[in-house]
């Protein structure tokens, strides 16, 4: 299938984009607000003769991903916050075994069962590994349906190149809303190269046996493996750090926000401009690796920042780490599924600027 423009929900666009990227197997468990994604996968993967399994739990689903990924196939799961918590065990094992895969979190509000409305309360879980041990996943945060499709499409190749799972961190708003989206062309799944580290097909290759595992009981060896993995993380970070800047250069105050919050900030900026107030937006697209260097540079140039999040304040800690005291960093957040309005964000910016 070639490139194609459609009107789609974010959840459906992610699913269609994953299929076009060569996703051979999807394993998932129903949870609101990402149910369109699992249903789309059931319909379209099965129709193509690929693998779809509605697992008995999120725990099982991520471990099916582990097994499929161990064979070198492009595999994926999706869920929403409470379900992604359940997947953390498996994600830790995937990272420990250096297996690629794509995990989508259409986030909702927490903690606990919380609510089904959009939230950004999973930032810490997403960017700090989330499970046990020293590791990271690559975290990409789309702001609209188009970017959801684009980042999901890219995620498979990125994950394979670096052998690090990629987490797409969307939220219930992005998953549920409909927008026009240009879908990427479909990759021929048979054209994807076989992975030298994967299990299976030993008969055809004559290679030595492969053992996919995360275990190593020798402390010095495990330490060496972790150090090597972190060196790889460093190289990946240099290549994968992504952000968007709008009106930052001459802004009196710069919003730092990702995903849905960034869209709200963009609206506030336009309203501010009509009132003669110059506001900018710095939008991290890769949450891990976080764009520390660029924010640090902006801080040294005298910018002040207002981090806006749908949480009690999580990404703001990375902003403060980046700025390292060189600039003032304020925070404005709503949580529990409440989306901040453009008016209240603008009012906070004006209050901070005394205007």
């Amino acid at each position, binding site marked *: 299938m070639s490139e194609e423009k459609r009107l789609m929900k974010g959840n459906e666009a992610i699913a269609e984009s994953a299929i076009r990227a060569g996703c*051979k*197997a999807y*394993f998932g468990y129903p949870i609101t607000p990402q149910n369109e994604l699992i249903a789309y996968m059931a319909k379209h993967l099965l129709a193509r003769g690929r*693998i779809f*399994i509605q*697992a*008995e*739990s999120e*725990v*099982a*689903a991520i*471990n*099916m*991903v*582990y*097994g*499929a*990924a*161990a*064979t070198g*196939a492009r*595999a994926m799961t999706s869920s929403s916050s409470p379900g992604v918590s359940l997947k953390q*065990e*498996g994600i830790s*094992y995937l990272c420990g*075994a250096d297996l690629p895969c794509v995990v989508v979190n259409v986030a909702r509000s927490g903690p606990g069962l919380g609510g089904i409305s959009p939230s950004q309360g999973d930032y810490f879980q997403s960017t700090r590994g989330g499970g046990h041990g020293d590791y990271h996943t690559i975290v990409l945060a789309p702001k609209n349906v188009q970017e959801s499709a684009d980042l999901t499409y890219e995620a498979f190749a990125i994950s394979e190149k670096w052998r690090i799972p990629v987490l797409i961190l969307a939220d219930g708003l992005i998953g549920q809303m409909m927008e026009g989206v240009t879908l990427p062309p479909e990759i021929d799944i048979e054209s994807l190269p076989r992975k030298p580290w994967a*299990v*299976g*097909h*030993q*008969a055809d290759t004559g290679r030595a*046996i*492969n*053992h*996919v*595992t*995360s*275990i190593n009981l020798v402390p010095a060896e495990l330490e060496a493996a972790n150090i090597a993995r972190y060196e790889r993380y460093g190289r990946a970070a240099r290549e994968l750090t992504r952000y968007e800047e709008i009106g930052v250069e001459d802004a009196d105050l710069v919003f730092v926000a990702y995903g849905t919050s960034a869209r709200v900030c963009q609206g506030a900026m336009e309203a501010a401009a009509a009132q003669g107030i110059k506001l900018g937006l710095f939008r991290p697209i890769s949450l891990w690796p976080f764009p520390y260097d660029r924010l640090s540079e902006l801080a040294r140039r005298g910018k002040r920042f207002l981090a806006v999040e749908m949480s009690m304040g999580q990404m703001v800690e990375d902003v403060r780490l980046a700025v390292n005291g060189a600039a003032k960093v304020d925070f404005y957040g709503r949580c529990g599924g409440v989306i901040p309005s453009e008016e209240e964000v603008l009012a906070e910016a004006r209050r901070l600027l005394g205007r």
Partner: protein
Amino acid sequence: MELVYGHPKSLKPIQTKYCPGCGHGVIHRLISEVIDEMGLQTRSIITNPVGCSIWADLYFDFDSVQPAHGRTPAAATGVKRMLPDHLVICYQGDGDLAAIGTAEIIHAANRGEKFTTIFVNNAIYGMTGGQMAPTTLVGQKATTAPEGRDPGTAGMGYPIKVCELLATLEGTRYLARGAVNNPVNVRKTKKYIRNAFEAQMRGEGFTMVEVLSQCPTNWSMKPAESVEWLEQNMIPFYPLGEIKNTLASVEGAGAIGASGAIGMPGAIGVPGAAVGTVAAGKE
């Protein structure tokens, strides 16, 4: 000169870490012998459990995948669905399968996943040092059941008969229980493994061979005592034989048909009752 017996190609010629008298080594060998006989060494993949047999990857000379504790059937599902023409073996212990991974084994069996589970039941947690397993017999001592497993006052529950539990699921096609405590049982167990692997390669549904195995270290016995203890205590409760066989084309097929009794109240609870009787005729 014809070589009539030797070390299996699919098993590396190295000493294992398993304790003296442990059944894992024999079970590894049976699996390897069947793989060699079927010519599947370069088309086999094993998913190993967490427990003593986490070391299995050191010994089997073919590809392996190590998932989290109890998630083995989910990972084996992922492997087998991607590589349907490979022999996929899901090796599990009693803690892995019947405690932490209960959901995964039941649903993999119910979906009729076309891999073979080798379920090693030694009625104890080995690697962690002798805690109570879901299959520990009533009255059997463990570090976490110091006075013996007590389903009554202490509320420790009853030993789980996994084959009989899974036999009610339509996705299961072949469920057999063997033992490795004596040569006769070892030979029968090998036959069950062969039946299961052949059924898998024919693309029939879920297959499992439960193997009663001894753990002298954590049973606090000498190896010779442990094989006798298994005979006297485990086999009466866990009857040997083909508990269910609805395979299309194998000797003994139709076992479950004869034991329609399996769904009947009372039939399954008594060792050696309906299910065992059916099995006995099929050994």
